[in-house]
């Protein structure tokens, strides 16, 4: 796989992580990241939907007229979500029950429609598949990162959600005696609740910003006004915003590589 293909795939995991950099799909991210099992399940389900919908939309990109592209994308995305839902319900019911309402809500997850609109409709199926896969794994990584903190520190357990598979959660931060009294309890309960979710989310965004800042910041690309919902209100002719720092860092990195090669 050449570098550009690899970069398309890797972009969605770190540089353009949908949750921590693009801040998309925040609602299911906070709701589902209370346990590691549900985070992984949700991440995998979203990845399958992203992969499938990106490929199909890319295949149909020259057929679907511009005027009905959004309804067509929604139909395709909903089809994949329904497919995943039916398969999980039939063959992995505990995970289906664990995800609950958040599974069908993948249809309205901004990441899925966003990538369809921003990438799949402008690129070939292979690139779209790589983008979908990368974004999906990025979503999973973000959810997993949050879930590790929230479940271990907030719930004090690990492997919660696998009871239907006869795997009991392991209590890490608390112990209950046989008579029901608490022996010790070092949990931080707020992390398991919504406010704690936002707190962990914010901390991870800060960490991600720090990581990407070292690499020169997030390169912002210019894109046209097509598809922008505010186009009719905006007075600009384009929405480009390229940070000088990012540009300088990139040029500097390219020069260093040339020097090394020459040496």
């Amino acid at each position, binding site marked *: 796989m050449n570098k550009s293909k690899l970069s398309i795939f890797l972009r969605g995991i770190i540089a353009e992580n949908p949750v921590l950099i693009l801040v998309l799909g925040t609602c299911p991210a906070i709701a589902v990241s209370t346990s590691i099992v549900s985070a992984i399940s949700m991440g995998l389900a979203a990845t399958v939907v992203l992969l499938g919908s990106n490929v199909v939309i890319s295949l149909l990109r020259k*057929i679907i007229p511009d005027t009905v592209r959004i309804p067509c994308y929604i*139909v395709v995305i909903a089809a994949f979500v*329904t497919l995943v839902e039916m398969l999980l*319900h039939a063959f992995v019911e505990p995970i289906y029950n664990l995800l609950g309402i958040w599974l069908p809500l993948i249809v309205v997850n901004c990441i899925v429609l966003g990538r369809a609109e921003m990438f799949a409709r402008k690129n070939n199926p292979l690139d779209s598949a790589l983008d979908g896969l990368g974004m999906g794994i990025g979503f999973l990584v973000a959810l997993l990162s949050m879930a590790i903190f929230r479940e271990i520190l907030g719930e004090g357990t690990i492997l919660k959600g696998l009871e239907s598979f006869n795997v009991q959660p392991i209590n890490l931060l608390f112990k209950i005696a046989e008579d029901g009294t608490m022996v010790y309890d070092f949990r931080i309960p707020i992390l398991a609740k919504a406010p704690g979710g936002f707190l962990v989310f914010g901390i991870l965004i800060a960490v991600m910003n720090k990581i990407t800042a070292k690499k020169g910041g997030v390169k912002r690309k210019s894109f046209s006004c097509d598809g922008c919902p505010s186009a009719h209100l905006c007075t600009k002719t384009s929405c480009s915003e390229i940070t000088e720092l990012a540009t300088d860092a990139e040029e500097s990195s390219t020069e260093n590589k040339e020097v090394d090669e020459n040496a």
Partner: protein
Amino acid sequence: MFAKFKPTIVLTSICIIVALLLGCVNIITAPAIAKQEERKAKAALYSAYNSGNDVEFTKLAAEELVEYSIPAEIKEVHSASAGGYVFIGVTGSYGGDIKIAVGVNADGEITGVKVVSNTDTANKIQSVLNAIEGNKGKYNGQNKDNLSPVIIAGSTVSSEACALIVDAALRAFSSLKGEDARTDDEVFADNLNIVLDVEGKKFTKWFATAIITGIDAIYTTSATADGIVMVIGDKLIGVKADGSITDTVSKLDKKAEKVATTAEDIAAVEAAYTIFQTAATTEIALPDGAKATVKKAYVTAGGTYVFEMETTGSYADEGEYSHGSGKIQFTVSIGADGKIIDIITTKHGESKNYGANCATEAFYESFRGATREQILDLDISDIIPNEDNGYETDNLPSSIQGPGIIANATFTTVYYHNAVLDAFDAFLKLTEKI
């Protein structure tokens, strides 16, 4: 031409293809899902019966449910090979229907309760589940003689739904054992029919019994040809349309045995019947300026005015947990002396244990003999029920005592009182006193 319709054609085609593909997937997944539902249903049976997998269950046919007069709330009955049954009942709860499995062993004791499905708010139903499910469920071990409903504060509606199904399950068990599982209300309703030799008639209490002495209550149907039933103590004595007096049936006698009516009772019934016939009402036009709460007006030969009323609001209509059950309807009779002779609530949707007290004998008794001035003196007409005073209990100052005061039901009390005052206004207009 094609370009004009292309968007429609493309979108429609995509929808059709997607629908077909999903249909194909459904063919593959449907059997597996059906098996799971069956497995879940079986698991609910074992959970409710509190047994291992060695017990087998046999579902009773629908015809058997009818044959044994199983309560309507019970939708399925599963007979356990170890004796006893599991009853699956459905009733309305806070967010919609709730389906509950109740296990009853051969001795008539509850073995367990399992909520199979519900659409109630998660945190509200969870507290109920914690209380009634599992080995330490609060219903476990109870039977029909010592049944005590488990009501959880903050989840009253869900709790009452569960209690209803548990009670229905125990009654169903009694029916299956050949016992009479009817509630007292059902026995009473059946005996009203039996004493008059009619069947399936719905009886309502006659609103103005208070004008007749020696009789505790009179029950009538919508058809005068059925006759009426008079209640003296716990005795039901019928008077047919031709004036003949029937034998006596005890109010709550499940066997409904008829005994000859005593001469003393016959005399009391005949005297009461004479007054009942003269109390027949004639509908009259509403007076000018009658309030909207006054729906109909009648007058008797003796100058008693009877008003059919409907309040302008109710807790069921507007309260925090309103369920749009409508306003309160009642009938009030005011004698020529300006005092309330009797009052009866004919329809309401108020909350059990609170506003529903507007349909109790104690509530009616509190109004009997009351005058307009006594009700005005309560000075509650200006209280406007709203979310500040109507949603919490005991909002009326405890110092307010008098006719028709329901301590923990501001909405019901205020709307009812305002309507009663409107009835008095109509009475005064009709008697030209204003």
